[in-house]
């Protein structure tokens, strides 16, 4: 790796969280050039949006998020059920808690290239999805979360526009800050809205839909497709 931001991440991970270094190396090994390109893009936006210590703070959040996910899965396998029983439980404990959601979203942001299987999805997103869009596409993003996917689309396609809906106020704030950092905020618009109530909105027909990592958060995912 020749770029300083990726080296900076590896140095910090090695110093503070050595058990996470192998996972990063696994992701790099998928495609070193694409890893570096995507990582640098995401780091550039994070540094502009969060300040000089964005890489370290975001990696702290990534470590906590990854540990939470691994713990939740391991406890599920041991107990046969998740600790939270309903969407309401999760909303009360997590989605509505701003500081927790801010960390959560920045942690998820880094998974787009630090988790090997997410890097593969990112590569697919650029090679197969973005490349297939028509000229000047109008895109809707349901549950943008950190906003990285949609901002990437706007970054790649200079005449695209995007309308995003997310249930979390933190998501609207962070996605907007990343759009601003990427210089695409004039073509991105984010609104607080439950994905399950989108059918009630009057929205112009769109050319493309981005919806990433939402289904697993829904109690009734079939309803979304209806």
């Amino acid at each position, binding site marked *: 790796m020749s770029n300083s931001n990726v080296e900076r991440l590896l140095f910090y991970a*090695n110093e*503070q*969280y*050595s*058990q*996470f*270094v*192998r*996972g990063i190396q696994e992701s790099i090994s998928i495609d070193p050039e694409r890893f570096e390109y995507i990582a640098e893009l995401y780091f550039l936006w994070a540094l502009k949006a969060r300040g000089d210590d964005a890489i370290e703070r975001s990696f702290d959040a990534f*470590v*906590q998020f*990854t*540990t*939470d996910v*691994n*713990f939740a899965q*391991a*406890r599920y396998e*041991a107990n046969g059920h998740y600790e939270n029983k309903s969407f309401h439980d999760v909303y009360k404990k997590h989605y509505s808690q701003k500081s927790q959601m801010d960390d959560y979203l920045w942690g998820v942001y880094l998974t787009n290239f630090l988790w090997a299987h997410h890097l593969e999805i990112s590569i697919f997103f650029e090679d197969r999805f973005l490349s297939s869009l028509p000229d000047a596409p109008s895109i809707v993003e349901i549950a943008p979360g950190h906003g990285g996917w949609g901002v990437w689309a706007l970054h790649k396609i200079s005449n695209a526009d995007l309308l995003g809906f997310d249930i979390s106020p933190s998501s609207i704030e962070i996605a907007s800050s990343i759009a601003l950092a990427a210089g695409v905020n004039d073509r991105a618009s984010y609104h607080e809205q439950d994905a399950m109530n989108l059918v009630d909105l009057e929205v112009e027909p769109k050319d493309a839909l981005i919806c990433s990592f939402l289904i697993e958060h829904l109690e009734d995912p079939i309803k979304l497709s209806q």
Partner: protein
Amino acid sequence: MTVLNQLNDVFQGVFEDDELFVNRTTSANDIEDWDSLMHVNLILTVEKEFGIRFASTEVSRLNNVGQLLDLIESKL
């Protein structure tokens, strides 16, 4: 048996290596298979062995055996 000896048995079991001996400075840099997934397996095994329970926030920042040892002893 000291807590460190008991913890060493856990490490040997989790990493399936009877020749593994840890000390306070041992970290993931010293054990090839100690990645973030194995870290959670290790922590869950420690919970069972010592009859304690950790919060995810307590274990995400652990970076060596000494820090894990201190955390275990704070709960015994």
